[in-house]
């Protein structure tokens, strides 16, 4: 780990999102190297891969909602693109 990468947790191996666990909103990499959008706050979700509109958003290994827009890998996933 380097301080240049954001701490995050993938709750279940089946998930297509991860949750960031730090305040490093100015960093653009997750631990493990995936590029991440700037400004994602603590506790918010990031797409681990592209999620097409209509596809389930998976966290805890279950569908917590569906993508309402195409979501790019590394993008912030929240009420603006998931319901």
């Amino acid at each position, binding site marked *: 780990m380097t301080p240049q990468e954001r701490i995050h947790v993938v709750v279940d191996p089946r998930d297509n999102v991860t*949750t960031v*666990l*730090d305040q490093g909103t100015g960093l653009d990499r997750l631990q493990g190297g995936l590029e991440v959008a700037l400004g994602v706050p603590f506790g918010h*979700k990031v797409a681990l891969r592209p999620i097409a509109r209509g596809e389930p958003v998976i966290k*805890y290994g*279950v569908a*917590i*909602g569906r993508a309402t827009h195409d979501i790019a890998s590394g993008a912030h996933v929240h*009420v603006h693109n998931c319901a």
Partner: protein
Amino acid sequence: MAVLPSHFLGFPRSDGRVGVRNYLVVVSAVALVNRWAELIAASLPDARAIAGEFMRGLRKPDAARQARVCEALATHPNVGACLVLCHDAASARLWREYLADCGRPHAVLALMEQNGMEAAIQAGQRALAQLDEMRRSVARQRSPFSALTLALECGGSDPTSALIANPAIGRVVDAVIDAGGSAIVSETVEFVGAEAPVRALCRSPRVAKDLLAAIAAAEQRMEEDGERYRGVNPTAENIEAGLTTLVEKSMGAVAKVGSRSFAGLLEFGEKPATPGLYLMDTPFFSPCSITGMIAAGAQLTLFGMGVFNPSGNPLAPTVKVCGNPMTVARWNDAIDADLSDVLAGGATLDQAAQRLGAFLVETVEGRETRAERWREGQFIVPKTLTPL
């Protein structure tokens, strides 16, 4: 996922169950004799008084539930020897019949057969001292994890419990279920919002029907009291914290069940007929829900928390699991499993779950939990009707 060894050292009981403790208990069968039980138990440092608010005059379903729970507590697998205290001689006779085949040292006394408090306390203390000697002849033996039933609980929830403590517990639950063991989760109302994932986790359509009916009934009761959950959750505050949907919010608590399938729904205090993962239909207040799961035979509770919660149970060790570094720092003497390094990026969830699994093994083999040290916990049996 956590990895468990092939066996653990436990106390085998004649009914086939296995204790993770060999407690000496003084059971107060009716609240009238709670004080007598406390005074007797105080004479030996290892003795625990099991003193609920067991009352007379309950309506039939409540009386039956209370009796079932009280009997189950006296013969819990973690009980090495029990002294049961009653008020009247007739109750004492019934208890002696019930305990005749319990396979453990036991004695029953009725207060009405004593002569004054001083003599009553001395009689109880003499009986307890004898039971204490007798229970010490039992030794731990290699026991399979299929004999283990976990109670699953969470309280003081925050984002770390949803993302660290509860998912780590879920991985340990998967390992226990895969070893042929059992786990019970409760607090039905916490499952509101997670119906779709729960349905997907059920072993059969019949199991799904039972679980979803219980969850719907709990939601209905909440609505009867004017509390709406669906439609107002996640709240604006939840959304600001990163929770997007109701399912996501509800899964924060449900994550502690892991990823294996539900084998069925249990009533309060009901023992599972076969191994596996169960939902017990209980109120959400943890001292009450834990009472139900322990009465069902769970030998240990895994308790996920964000902020501190002092729940426990006198009959089963409670492992307090926490991923919040501020809580761990403030409540270091009351939390068992510190998983806060996940938040600092120093460990993955899988590594944390491995550590929790190792801690579970140490605990079932005798490592004292903080809740045991502080003697946390009590027994609360729910009542549904106004007593007579």
